[in-house]
């Protein structure tokens, strides 16, 4: 390439394992290709457009002028110095996208909601509904409040009493049916932390939770929460060795797996690695769901059915994608009696808010989704803790 110039991109907000994330186009907006940051790229002199989708959901783009014989360094997104703040903003953006405040509130007229002065929460073991002491597990990070809603962000760490079980977070305001969401944490793995957002008005309350794992998990999560499925799948495919072969973070692996499933790219992951994800985390239904869907896409219906049955045995999938895929696979196509376990799963599938990443729905008891919903007794003796 005679008379070429050189460009080197850097994207500090994304880990190296995310792969070639910079989209490069010429001045006619024709695609040149996807470029790997921190590598020298030779380009003919001229005008180009470089862009990258950041995990906050924002798209950063720069027009660059390449000159013959010159090297240009282009930084996209926030720089290294701004990264600690960027990580906080990324988590906040993901939580806001997953559970917008105004989703919970009626904003106008006589029915306008008012922010709750006090709300309640408790943790329940997913296998048997036993309350767990929430105090050591939940730490308030930030509170925001306006007339209509109070939003509280918390950091959650796996409580010791989890004993390998998945955990329901149940939140309530007096007189209302509680909201329940599964926490994206797994004891005995590296997935020990998550961020929780609770939005509370006097007449409604909702909660969501997103994993707070390694950089890769956080990036994939944020892309999914902000609706950038293609970016999530791109990162998951590029980082598949780290995500799936080593299973350093099974929750990050599961989210990456769902992104790849959604884009029909799960065959880019070795079948054995998906089986490892399912086998190494027996308390985690989502691994089995992904294994079932991978088998189905390979045409192995027997394996798909076996993994689906295994997923059902393990319980409610942690993520809404997993619940949706499992319900679609297991729902009978003709009227017939179903087991209580499947009945419960299909009931949760009907109640769940699929706009959230984790499984979340309103019910007095998440283990009894078919029961008549009613406001619970918020006495501390039932495990409830008050927040104001």
């Amino acid at each position, binding site marked *: 390439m005679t008379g070429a110039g050189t460009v080197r991109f850097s994207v500090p907000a994304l880990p190296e394992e995310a792969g070639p994330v910079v989209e490069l*186009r*010429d*001045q*006619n*907006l*024709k*695609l040149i290709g996807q470029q790997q940051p921190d590598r020298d790229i030779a380009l003919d002199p001229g*005008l180009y*457009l470089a*862009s990258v989708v950041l995990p906050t*959901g924002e*798209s950063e*783009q720069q*027009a660059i002028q390449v000159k013959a014989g010159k090297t240009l360094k282009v930084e996209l997104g926030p720089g290294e110095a701004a990264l600690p703040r960027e990580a906080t903003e990324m988590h906040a953006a993901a939580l806001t996208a997953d559970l*917008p405040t*105004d*989703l919970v509130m*009626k*904003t*106008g*007229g006589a029915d306008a909601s008012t922010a709750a002065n006090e709300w309640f929460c408790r943790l329940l073991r997913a296998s048997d509904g036993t309350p767990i002491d929430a105090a050591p597990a939940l730490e308030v990070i930030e509170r925001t409040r306006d007339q209509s809603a109070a939003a509280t962000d918390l950091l959650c760490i796996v409580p010791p009493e989890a004993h390998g079980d998945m955990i329901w977070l149940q939140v309530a305001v007096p007189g209302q049916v509680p909201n329940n969401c599964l926490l994206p944490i797994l004891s005995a793995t590296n997935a020990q932390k998550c961020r929780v957002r609770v939005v509370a008005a006097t007449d409604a309350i909702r909660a969501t939770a997103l994993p707070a794992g390694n950089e890769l998990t956080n990036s994939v999560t944020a892309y999914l929460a902000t*609706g*950038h*499925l*293609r970016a999530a799948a791109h990162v998951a495919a590029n980082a598949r060795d780290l995500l799936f072969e080593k299973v350093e973070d099974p929750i990050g692996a599961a989210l990456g797996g769902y992104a790849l*499933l*959604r*884009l*029909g790219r799960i065959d880019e992951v070795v079948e054995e690695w998906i089986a490892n994800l399912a086998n190494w985390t027996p308390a985690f239904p989502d691994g089995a769901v992904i294994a079932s869907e991978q088998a*189905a*896409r390979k*045409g192995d*219906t027997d394996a798909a059915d076996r993994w689906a049955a295994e997923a059902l045995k393990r319980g409610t999938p942690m993520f*809404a994608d997993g*619940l*949706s*895929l499992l*319900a*679609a696979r297991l*729902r*009978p*196509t*003709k*009227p*017939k009696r*179903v087991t209580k376990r*499947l*009945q419960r799963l*299909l*009931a949760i*599938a*009907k*109640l*769940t*808010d*699929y*706009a959230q990443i984790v499984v979340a729905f309103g019910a007095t008891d998440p283990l009894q*989704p*078919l029961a008549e*919903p009613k406001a619970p007794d918020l006495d501390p003796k039932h495990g409830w803790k008050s927040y104001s």
Partner: protein
Amino acid sequence: MVKPWIKHATGDGPSTHALVIGVSAYEHLPDGATPPAVPAEESFGLRQLQSAASSAWSFAQWLRDDYNPPKAPLGTVRLFLSPSGKEHVPAGIPAATFANVEPAVRTWFKEFKDRPDDVAILYAAGHGIMLSKDEGAIVLLEDFGSPDRGMIQNSLDVPTVIKGLAAKKVAQSQFFFIDACSVKPELVKDMESLQKGAGLDVPGHNPPSVAAIYASAAPDTLALGAPGKGTLFSQALVECLDGLAATLDDGGGWVIRDTSMVGPLKDRITNLAAEHDAEQVPTSGGTLGSTVLHVLPKPPPLEVEFRVAPGEATPFCFATLDDEQGKTVVKRSPLDPPPLQKTVPAGLYTLAVAIDPAEAKRFKASQQICFLRPPKPQPVVIKVS
């Protein structure tokens, strides 16, 4: 057998085949043509709708007038509408009854069941029982609640349609738009299995390349609409197809992909619902493949704001906007009062700001290149100090 509303001759090449259904008027619900066959508590407390049929009509018109796929031109559109008295749709469109829709599902399927390069589109609007985001909904047809059939059987069984289309030889690009006013799930909580509505009997076992499912109301939320004007979902959908969800293809053209619809459709519906002081949360499911659904004939128009920094320079600044070919799109325009707002096609531009009078020496003329893209570009701020 009802004939398709549109049937184009497309030769041996791939085609698009659409089934579009909109039900506002329900014969057996209160205020329907026939007194309710069952009490309100057994018909889930449902009422007549005011906008589902006009929503379906709006989408059908978009298919007829604007749909521009990359490879599979519009072949057939099967259209069934049951409008309310407040809706204006053409006369002569067959009603969305079970007797009409059930055979139409089968003949629609036959158009593309051995043609993997074809495109299949299903749009259904009406009362619905939402299932998961990978199943869609059971959409209730006009004669739902009829005494001569089971409660749910006069319905469109979207889940069995999706399963029935899961085969290698069937059209591999499938798009499902489910615009359903959702029945409260506690009223149908005992309904675990599907109930033999209009659908496809034989489930396939090979998921297609693309089976994108866009639903207007997740379980336990309601689909909203302006009476006679169409639902918020259909309004947002057409806006997205017309450019809000546009993205660049490899050649620099503007297209709508299955993946590019996800964020803008969700955001637009949420915003429209907020304008109505309500909430509506759409979902997207199924398998997406970054497939191009529609090619825009030209770059989508965007509303853009232009400002200068520092703000005190504004009275002295004049902006000119040239496109990537050097053609002036916005002639020298004052930036005072701020912001300067213009509607321009999406694309790459050079923004030049001149300072006048020249004696405003503390500020300097400046130029920058900016890329303006959907859905809503950030305000363009250019420094002049």
